């Protein structure tokens, strides 16, 4: 299983959309992609909506990115974490380190609702 990554930049920061599995085979290249982005100093969002599995090595890679971001004073948010991945991250303690954009997503949902209401 491979991992594809796409980068998007906007005013708020950089979004990296990952598709596939993050495991010992794919996490090395993911790290090489993420580290320069962290060093740019812009807020980084990692979109995991299309990530089906994160292995132990993958979780460690994400934590290394988080530590690097801490080092650089950069905010890293995980986004779109599937229920299974979230459970694994929670059970193994990795979730405690990350902001997972849930509040952000809820706020966006609420804003969309408000906008829809206003449009009616």
């Amino acid at each position, binding site marked *: 299983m491979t991992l594809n990554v796409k980068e998007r930049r906007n005013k708020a920061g950089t979004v990296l959309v990952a598709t596939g599995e993050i495991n010992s085979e794919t996490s090395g290249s993911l790290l090489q992609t993420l580290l320069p982005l962290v060093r740019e100093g812009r807020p980084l969002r990692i979109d995991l909506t299309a990530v089906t599995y994160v*292995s*132990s090595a993958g979780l*460690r890679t994400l934590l290394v990115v988080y*530590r690097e971001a801490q080092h650089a004073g950069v905010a890293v948010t995980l986004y779109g974490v599937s229920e299974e991945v979230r459970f694994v991250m929670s*059970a193994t*303690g990795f979730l405690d380190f990350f902001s997972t954009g849930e509040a952000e997503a809820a706020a966006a949902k609420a804003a969309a609702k408000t906008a829809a209401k206003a449009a009616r």
Partner: protein
Amino acid sequence: MSEPASEQVLRVDAYPTHEVGGYRVRAGKPFPFGANVVPGGVSFSVFSDQATSMTLVIYQRGEPEPMAELEFPQEFRTGSVFAMTVFGLDHENIEYGYRADGPYDPVTGHRFDARQVLSDPYARLIAGRDVWGVEPDRSRGYQYRSRVCLQDFDWGDDTPLGIPAEDLVVYETHVRGFTRHPSSQVTAPGTFAGLREKIPYLKELGINCIELLPVFEFDESDNPRTNPETGEQLFDYWGYNTVSFFAPKAGYAATGRYGMQGDEFRTLIKDLHAAGIEVILDVVFNHTAEGNEQGPTISFKGLDNATYYMLTPEGYYFNFSGTGNTVNCNHPVVRNFVLDCLRHWVADYHIDGFRFDLAAILGRSPDGTPLPNPPLLELLAYDPVLRHTKLIAEAWDAGGLYEVGNFPAYGRWAEWNGKYRDTVRSFLKGDPGITGELATRIAGSPDLYSSRGTSASVNFLTAHDGFSLADLVSYNDKHNEANGEGNNDGGNDNASWNCGAEGPTDDPEVNALRLRQMKNALAILFTSQGIPMLLSGDEVARTQQGNNNTYCQDNELSWFDWTQVDENSELLRFTREMIAFRKRHRELRSTSHPTGQLRDTLGLPDISWHGERAWQPDWSAESRLLAVARCGTGDDDVVYAAMNSHWEAHDLELPALPGGRSWHLFADTGAEAPYDIRTPGAELELENAGKYLIGPRSVVILVGRTPDAEL
């Protein structure tokens, strides 16, 4: 702040020097043993004293056949250690083992067989039993597969809690049993993650130490028996049959199928610590899952049988454990193995202490003779890494060695006090002439631990092994038919009493007496000097239907039924308040045995004994009533506990209190709830200051303080 990941250190030993079997390799480092991730590869190191050659066998994860077999070059051998670094391995997706070649001569103790792939005794992860209860494919040649893992868990600011031993309130539980019942309502029942979700319950209960039944990898499916009543397969549920000593049980982790059991267990420990709860592991070093000559070859047997096991002169296995083999604990190599293992659990898992199953074996020499100064016990007592951990011995073994009170302690070892259990049980059921020994037991057993202090005594009435508290007051006899051994397994000497009916009954009087007896037991336990240990579920009257040996029952006989938290809320409340009371009164937790000397502040002795008349305890053969008053140093308060196992009520004359103090009622198990117990600090002042009527088979606890004092 950590070094950024980009700043890699270049090392000369990150480059191979040889090629073996198509893999680039170099000589590894003999220490540490096991498989360790190093720059560019994995370093493997294994000890065998008598092997003539050693081969590293590597599998793709889950594949039946190896992908590589790499024989250790002779120059990669240092002494009796074979060490090799293999480059280019994807450590997350391999499993490994060893083939050890050497003599097969059981009479001289050697059982080498190069056809067998052996598990690494130092493996930190094991694959093969990843999900609890899944029927294994026994046709696979290599069942318990060693795996490589990183030891890089982020502990944050987690540090040992260092709770003084005398302040501990231990809660003994089974990882799976605690949350496996559907009523637990946790996300992943029966797992470390499930237990983590129940931390608020433990915190509210007030315990500050959890003792887990074995969590080292074992094979729950190695029980061949079936339940004769239902035909269902029985398990090795308790897990006192270790397969691998450095590896947490994968089947106890919701993430075990992903190989993340290490992180899941560590996360549980980290959160328990954050809640102020220490973690003690029940460890089994007296025997292994390899059994005797009929048993399977998993690891030690094929690596160095004569080193790891106590053998008779004919090459058979000594059986001081009752399970087929006996670990040769005081052999210098095995001593170091045990030490390495415990250090691993302390350093890499932040474990706070250990309870050693059948620990008397740890004091035996290679020929089975009890040693006066067992080097292993001394080693563990003084080891720098283990220095502040709790060490608790089950101070007997199946070979008849009983060392309660005589265990070689080196000032460090505490013991499960079996005599405390037997005495208090006997008193509770109403046996006469027990008051003298009861006094000794509740004062911290000075006859056994005079030089070691009260915290050498772990006081318990029930444990995983034997009746639960509810069954202790509901059954005269064990009912173990479901274990498939014709009710011949399990202890017969239970000192239990069914209160008038065997098993479940609709008789309200019997049920009321049972509830009272459970409260009596808890009241005595939590006002005794020594470390109290509570069996998980006893606070809500968990029953095993009279089965006193549920080692094989992975079902509702063993599981904690969370519906009982509401159903038996009266007993739960009683337990919580008793624990809170113990925490509030230092004199109950004094480390030194009481001497009867006067306390300057109150003019009362540190301990005094009473009967129906103050200052006149009845030690006679027919006595079933004893009251004790404890006076704290600097606490300025007095705790009086009267224990009546007689079937009649008694008028108690209370000792007079100095300095404007008066007696206040904290608990009376003879009273209806909610008046059976109060919140510590909110005790009710007695109207009749000098007297109290204690009901039949009841315990009364009073506090002597000034009426308005919030202690």
